[in-house]
């Protein structure tokens, strides 16, 4: 028999059938169903087990506030746990399973926890698992984690795509219920740019679930017509299946759009899109959430919110039960009974707390069958519709720490002060609980906002509707009940837990929340918080407003981490920057390393080489013996121009730059404001008013930013202009004794002899018959060396041309590793030495900080602590036993001293195997290093289990006099 509980009516498409599977059973439903409504139509009431006690649980609500009916959707890698059945739109082929049970759902082995409930009350874990300490991580936590919890992740990478996006509007309307639709019509007709977002797939909010009339027609029909009119307005964007989950700064809201969750196949399109919505104003019309009443065994499958019962009957054409009892503290109860009777569902009794009748207990292990009243009577019922009143959905009004205010007449919290700037509230979310008033408020608020925003069109009239009877009473729990009365269904918190929290001194609401976990589940206590507060207020003899509320934070409903990540996963996690010779390097066996966003060749593997060391040793040896070529495009290049460019450089570099001649390059050291060295590089003067600065690869952006700050904010009176040219030039280092001979074959008509083009010279020139280029005679390796730059579009051809021209010399390409070996051999500082803690003096560059001028950081670099003679100094190291391989990070100790921090003498910053010297060489900082050349110290590395003797030497292991680079 199919869909035994399907009744007449509803807003579903009965002409089409949808097949789906629940725990392996084949079931059917119709378009317009949620998974929850289809399960109820099929007579399924038990859908899950509770978090802690593994109690049987059913469907409790008909919306995103659902605490109970959490299920797993889809299969394999696409499986998604903890999904609310009440918001999951049914589609053909949907596979859903229940979660949080061992064995079948009906016979969950973990249900034994329920028998232990006297021991599992609030604070149980805190009190019980304190001792012995070591047991927590090894025993208690794994056991608790295995037995508690909700669904299971697939453990496989998420196969779906997600995306991010940006939207802009004058007015963002959050919620497309009656107030939201009326608001969107008013602002849209007036001509404002409107976005109307709603989490549901059907517009109208409660209008679909109730039998109200709007403008003389059924409310659900009016909602469809209103949405159709809005869809026809070019200035309005209606976004269904879109939850505005957070209010952020400057009118920015986060919204999650579920694009393909309701489809069997996403067609390769993103499943969800996380939108950043920039709004000038926003209007919250998020309605209200119905709450339960705490009474004995109020968690059985079949106990349901009364508004949800009406939604299933009116919107989905489903009877949640065949014999329904109603328990209410307000006028909603009668409406529920009337709606049920109108659809031919038997109502066995209306129990109105205002008349003194209350429910004290229920029976029915896997589904409700009997309801017990306070007057010793009982009622047969397979469904109990409970209405404890409505709580306005104030959540987003609290995202900037605004606190809601209590309103006695509706027995609920309404938006208080401290709303996010630009946010207004209308309708039930604002405490305007009846339909006619909500429509008017939505219309009027939006019309006024549209006028404020300069939309001059006519907003039209507010839609007319009657105001239904509404009388709330502040009745939250049945005090005389002796059974456990559930407050937070999702986290299994009972009224007793709340009272116990009070007894044990956790009386502030924020303490109550943490001690009992009330409201801390994935539903954030949407149906539970009010009950908990009311019981706490009663226990402490305070009023509810005196007791206060906890704060709401984004997200309003859970957002998948995948949606936050968007496209930024796997190889798309971040962009890659490639040098112009990248493809050539790939063709030639390069292994790449990530340096920032750049991919750089770290070495070039040749046939027969057994590992990276073979490649690097060969590259170093060939470069030092003949010539090597390295792509150095990644170094930051900044074009600096202006009448005051030289003066500007003189102020940002610690050393002098004012008198640098045109056609010359100078090494420069930059200090931070606090005097610590932070970047170095060379700057070339190409013309009287034109310089090109190079920075380290890692600091290119930081240096540019600092220079812009200096130019715009410190010295706006200087005529100096900056623009990055890092990507504009393909730049290659050509190093080694044959570099001059190689380049002489490449450049057009330029005398490269030592007399004509000396060390630290630069010039614009052309190469290979007319292509513009720049040539710099600078050396990082210590060899005779140049750097040659061509516009990036020629970069690929240039590396091929250089290699072809170098073939006669056995030219080799070298990567960053060989570059590193040669700079360590030469004693040049790099990132390991410029670590943000080192001063010019420590680097042995103290003399570079000019005393004759003021530059950024120069004054503070003179502080006594920065210039101590007994401070760390950069020196070189080699192992006493030359066969030992040194390790970076080792700390230095004076021989005979104990290995502790009190005797620490510094550390090894960089090491390399020098193929030329045939032993390890290192650089490092040693206390009073400058006076200890020739001494022997211990290099001690407990991490790598190394303790060796090293000889202190000058940092320049190769060509200390600099003969090669100047030759």
């Amino acid at each position, binding site marked *: 028999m199919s869909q035994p509980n399907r009744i007449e009516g509803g807003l579903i498409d009965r002409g089409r059938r949808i097949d789906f599977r629940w725990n392996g059973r084949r079931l059917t439903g119709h378009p317009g169903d949620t998974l929850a409504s289809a399960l109820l139509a099929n007579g399924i009431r038990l859908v899950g087990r509770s978090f802690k006690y593994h109690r049987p649980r059913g469907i409790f609500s008909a919306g995103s506030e659902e605490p109970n009916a959490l299920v797993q959707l889809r299969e394999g890698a696409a499986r998604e746990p903890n999904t609310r059945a009440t918001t999951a739109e049914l589609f053909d082929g949907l596979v859903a399973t229940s979660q949080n049970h061992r064995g079948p759902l009906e016979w969950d082995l973990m249900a034994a926890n329920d028998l232990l409930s006297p021991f599992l009350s609030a604070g149980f874990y805190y009190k019980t698992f304190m001792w012995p300490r070591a047991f927590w991580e090894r025993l208690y936590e794994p056991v608790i984690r295995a037995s508690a919890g909700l669904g299971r992740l697939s453990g496989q990478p998420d196969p779906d*795509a997600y995306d991010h996006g940006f939207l802009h509007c004058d007015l963002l309307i959050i919620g497309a219920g009656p107030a939201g639709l009326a608001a969107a019509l008013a602002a849209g007709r007036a001509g404002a*740019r409107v976005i109307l977002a709603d989490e549901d797939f059907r517009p109208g909010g409660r209008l679909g679930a109730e039998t109200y009339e709007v403008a003389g027609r059924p409310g659900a029909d009016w909602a469809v017509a209103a949405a159709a009119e809005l869809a026809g307005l070019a200035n309005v964007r209606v976004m269904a299946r879109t939850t505005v989950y957070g209010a952020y700064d400057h009118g920015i809201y986060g919204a999650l759009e579920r694009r393909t969750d309701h489809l069997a196949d996403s067609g390769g399109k993103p499943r969800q899109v996380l939108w950043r919505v920039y709004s000038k104003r926003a209007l919250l019309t998020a309605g209200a959430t119905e709450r339960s009443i705490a009474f004995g065994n109020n968690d059985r499958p079949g106990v349901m919110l009364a508004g949800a019962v009406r939604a299933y009957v009116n919107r989905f054409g489903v009877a949640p039960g065949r014999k329904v009892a109603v328990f209410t503290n307000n006028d909603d109860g009668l409406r529920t009974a009337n709606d049920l009777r109108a659809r031919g569902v038997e109502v066995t009794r209306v129990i109105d707390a205002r008349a003194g009748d209350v429910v004290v207990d229920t029976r029915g292990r896997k589904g409700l069958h009997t309801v017990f009243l306070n007057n010793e009577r009982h009622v047969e019922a397979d469904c109990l519709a409970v209405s404890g009143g409505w709580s306005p959905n104030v959540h987003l009004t609290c995202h900037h720490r605004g606190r809601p205010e209590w309103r006695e007449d509706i027995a609920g919290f309404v938006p208080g002060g401290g709303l996010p700037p630009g946010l207004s509230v209308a309708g039930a979310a604002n405490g305007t609980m009846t339909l006619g008033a909500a429509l008017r408020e939505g219309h009027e608020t939006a019309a006024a906002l549209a006028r404020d925003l300069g939309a001059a069109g006519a907003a039209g009239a507010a839609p007319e509707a009657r105001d239904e009877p509404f009388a709330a009473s502040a009745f939250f729990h049945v005090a005389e009940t002796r059974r456990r009365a559930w407050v937070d269904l999702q986290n299994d918190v009972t009224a007793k837990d709340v009272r116990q929290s009070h007894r044990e001194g956790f009386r502030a609401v924020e303490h109550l929340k943490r001690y009992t976990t009330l409201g801390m589940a994935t539903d954030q206590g949407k149906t539970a918080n009010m009950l908990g507060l009311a019981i706490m207020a009663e226990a402490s003899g305070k009023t509810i407003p005196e007791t206060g509320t906890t704060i709401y934070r984004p997200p309003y409903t859970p957002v998948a981490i995948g949606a936050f990540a968007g*496209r930024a996963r796997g190889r798309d996690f971040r962009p890659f920057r*490639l040098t112009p010779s990248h493809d050539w390097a790939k063709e030639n066996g390069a292994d790449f390393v990530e340096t920032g966003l750049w991919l750089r060749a770290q070495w070039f593997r040749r046939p027969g080489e057994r590992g990276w060391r073979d490649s690097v040793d060969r590259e170093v040896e060939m470069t030092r013996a003949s010539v090597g070529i390295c792509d150095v495009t990644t170094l930051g290049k900044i074009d600096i121009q*202006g009448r005051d460019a030289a003066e500007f450089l003189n102020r940002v570099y610690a050393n002098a730059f004012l008198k640098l001649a045109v056609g010359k390059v100078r090494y420069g050291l930059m200090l931070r404001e606090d005097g610590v060295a932070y970047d170095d590089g060379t700057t070339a003067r190409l013309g009287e008013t034109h310089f090109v600065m190079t920075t380290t690869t890692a600091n290119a952006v930081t240096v540019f930013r600092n220079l812009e700050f200096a130019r715009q904010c410190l010295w706006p009176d200087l005529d100096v202009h900056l623009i*990055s040219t890092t*990507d504009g030039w393909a730049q290659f280092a050509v190093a080694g004794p044959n570099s001059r001979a190689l380049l002489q*074959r490449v450049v057009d008509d330029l005398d490269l002899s030592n007399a004509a083009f000396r060390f630290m010279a630069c010039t614009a020139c052309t190469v290979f018959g007319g292509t513009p280029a720049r040539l710099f005679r600078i050396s990082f390796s210590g060899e005779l060396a140049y750097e040659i730059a061509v516009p990036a*579009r020629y970069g690929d051809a240039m590396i091929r041309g250089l290699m072809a*021209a170098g073939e006669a010399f056995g030219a080799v390409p070298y990567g960053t590793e060989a570059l590193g070996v040669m700079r360590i051999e030469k004693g040049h500082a790099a990132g390991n030495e410029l670590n943000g803690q080192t001063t010019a003096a420590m680097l042995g560059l103290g003399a570079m900080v000019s005393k004759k001028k003021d530059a950024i950081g120069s004054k503070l670099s003179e502080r006594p602590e920065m210039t101590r003679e007994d401070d760390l100094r950069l020196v070189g190291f080699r192992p006493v036993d030359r066969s030992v391989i040194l390790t970076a990070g080792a700390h230095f100790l004076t021989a005979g001293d104990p290995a502790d921090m009190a005797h620490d003498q510094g550390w090894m910053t960089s090491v390399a195997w020098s193929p030329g010297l045939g032993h390890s060489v290192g650089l490092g900082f040693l206390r009073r290093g400058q006076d200890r050349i020739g001494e022997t110290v211990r290099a001690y590395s407990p991490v790598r289990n190394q303790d060796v003797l090293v000889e202190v030497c000058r940092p320049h292991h190769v060509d200390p006099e600099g003969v090669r680079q100047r030759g």
Partner: protein
Amino acid sequence: MAEFAFTLAAAPTLGGADIAPGGNRIAERDDLALVSVAIPLGGDRALAAALRKGWGLAVPGPRLSAVSDRARAIRTAPDQIMLVFARSGPDANATVQAALAGAGYTTDQTDAWVALEVSGPDTPAALERLCPLDLQPDAFPEGAAARTVMEHMGAMILRLGADRFLLLSASSSARSFLHAVETSYRHVMR
């Protein structure tokens, strides 16, 4: 002339990419030269005159571009303009310098950027997934230009028509940029 004979051929950053996701088009524009012009301190008038004389261009205001039959000028900073014009050789900078006769400091930016012209019916929807700016025609009309960030990459956007834009981003990350643009189209195209 260089002793060693070798033909140094220029290669477009993306090899002249030209793809058509759905009924749309993403095409690399490697025929465009980009030269930045910095306005000397106190030299606004002289530069405006030189720009008008040399290129028939007005100095554009913030988030705007100016266009003549020879070139387009985009305002990129308070003291900076980017000239965009059709030219394939490596001599764009010299051309601009000659035309401005010292009224501005010029830097060739052609090779620092990759230029993609995107067009087609899904373009506004694709850019919603990529560009944080409000591109609604009233807010960003034809000729509007702005600097922004797309998928973590610095970028410039210029509106050429209702569904036609020029996107500029760093040439070193051009492949990632093209991937991001193409992915945006694939995510929204029908």
